[in-house]
């Protein structure tokens, strides 16, 4: 699978003059790439720099005056304590972890059923679930909110948002896991059945250990999906003390409007977990996002 479209491999330059010629003919490519990369980097760098400049500096001059200004972490402590981002950070975690685990577990169980057991309407049901992947969450807002309100105020607890994220994460989970499980060797499953292993034992001891890549890809995708979500949190988390960071940021925007030192610090706190995930688990991360592409 090492086929690459690699132009230089065809004519690897040997002499200095050949190399020079190549550098000159290639320079438009290098220049274009460096300009694009710079454009892509500048907005994030601007936010990062703004978040460590003092208030008076950010109000009077742009981030590019970074070398003339005092750098400070006080914006972060202010946003964490006074503005309540620290509490919101914990809320984000508390919302995200169950919302990732539940579709992972229910999805894997169902995927096993669709891949390795037989029951009536199995494949029709599965096709229906494939169709559910792109149903917009908007179709569920009103009825779910009504349901949560009328059943002990689930929307004032975390249960409401957990259930909503689980439900809308499940179709993708089932789809991905089933497609992965079906590629496992049939003999392996059959042999386990011959040995008298129960279906649940096969699921737990054979299928799950072999499917870590698929589980990890979906887990990361769902984790980031929930962590980054604003819309569902706005609707299904009614208690202000339980709101996640994304909602908190929108409130900071109305309180602090043009005070970018606070907004920038808040924005960066929101980004930090996804960035850590990105750099630590890049391979699974890209796979997860590609896998999620059938959803959105």
């Amino acid at each position: 699978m090492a086929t690459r479209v690699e132009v230089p491999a065809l004519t690897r330059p040997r002499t200095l003059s050949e190399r020079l010629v190549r550098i000159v003919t290639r320079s438009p490519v290098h220049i274009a790439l460096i300009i694009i990369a710079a454009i892509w980097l500048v907005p994030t760098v601007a936010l990062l720099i703004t978040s460590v400049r003092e208030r008076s500096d950010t109000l009077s001059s742009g981030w590019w005056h970074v070398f003339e200004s005092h750098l400070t972490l006080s914006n972060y402590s202010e946003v964490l304590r006074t503005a309540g981002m620290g509490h919101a950070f914990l809320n984000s975690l508390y919302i995200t972890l169950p919302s990732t685990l539940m579709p992972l577990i229910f999805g894997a169980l169902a995927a096993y059923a669709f891949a390795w057991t037989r029951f009536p309407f199995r494949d029709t049901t599965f096709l229906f679930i494939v169709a559910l992947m792109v149903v917009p969450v908007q179709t569920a807002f009103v009825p779910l909110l009504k349901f949560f309100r009328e059943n002990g105020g689930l929307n004032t607890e975390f249960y409401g948002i957990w259930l909503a994220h689980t439900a809308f994460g499940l179709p993708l989970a089932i789809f991905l896991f089933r497609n992965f499980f079906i590629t496992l060797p049939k003999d392996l499953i059959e042999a386990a059945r011959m040995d008298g292993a129960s279906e649940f034992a096969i699921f737990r001891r054979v299928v799950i250990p072999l499917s870590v890549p698929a589980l990890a890809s979906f887990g990361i995708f769902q984790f980031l999906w929930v962590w980054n979500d604003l819309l569902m949190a706005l609707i299904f988390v009614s208690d202000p003390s339980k709101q996640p960071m994304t909602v908190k940021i929108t409130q900071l925007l109305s309180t602090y409007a043009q005070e970018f030192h606070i907004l920038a610090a808040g924005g960066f706190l929101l980004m930090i977990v996804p960035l850590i995930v990105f750099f630590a688990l890049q391979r699974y991360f890209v796979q997860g996002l590609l896998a999620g592409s059938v959803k959105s």
Partner: protein
Amino acid sequence: MTTAPVARRALSLLSLSAQAPPIQVPQPKRRFGRSREGSLKERLQGIAFALPAIAVLCLFVIYPAYYTVRLAFYKSDFLFSFTNWVGLDNFKDLFEDKAFFDVSEFPPSGAVFNNVRWVIIYISLCLILGLALAVLTIRVRYESFIKSIIFIPMAISATAVAVIWLLVYSPNADIGTVNAVINAFGGNPVSWLGKESTVNYAIIVAYVWASTGFAMVVLSAALKGIPTEILEAARVDGAGEWSIFRRIMLPMLSLPISVVTVWLFINVIKVFDIIYVMTAGGPGTSSRVIAYTMFTETFSGNPGRGAAVAVIMLVLTVPVMILNIRRFKSERVMT
């Protein structure tokens, strides 16, 4: 989508390393739709495995969708109950609302046409930039470095993207990057997000910044899948780089391009967070889109109309559903 072929490849590698060729036992092909076999116990077990997920889906996805479709034909209230059947009036009201649909002048405006702008500009910019980056990065040694930089915005939330670009677009030329550049060239600062004529394009650019990485990664992976021999043969025949791109790469990339286009389309239909944070649909209603209208109508005392908007969104995703099912079925034929 991507994990399955990886596993398949790994398995084929495993079987290659086996010493004796495996004896081929002719087995009946597992065809689609032949799931009624199996003992009662087996069936019950299967159902037990699938039941928790199916119950959650029925309760929290399917039933709500039915409820919303029904609600679209009622004039509802804050309790979201079915009070006053109004037939298609909600849809009629929507299309008479100038904030949603306005064809009285040219260019037409309102949430629907803002969404059309999004579809055209956002999708084409993401595709063009993603394709260009895929083709260019493959030629340099620091490929993965550039790709990481472009891909990072995919990781962060639309809320964070909005904060980042609020700073970029700040009307104050001493703070906003774009206006500082304009100022340096002697122009006057523009309030990008405060003017009806620019606000939509400004948000679209911010979202393109966030989504191009996806297009780039998918297209780049597909590009590397094109066999080198084909490209070499073309070069030997004297084809220039441009005609290789036009006549070989582009046709061979048509499937991944369509996958990316569908993904971007769903993104456009669902776009909400970034608009909510950057402009809250403003100034006035000039940056609203369909998904944004659903939110404002529902929570400003018109759940019936909000439901009607949700139905429109659902209808817009139906072609994608059909496409997904078709693609899945055709993939099954190959396995």
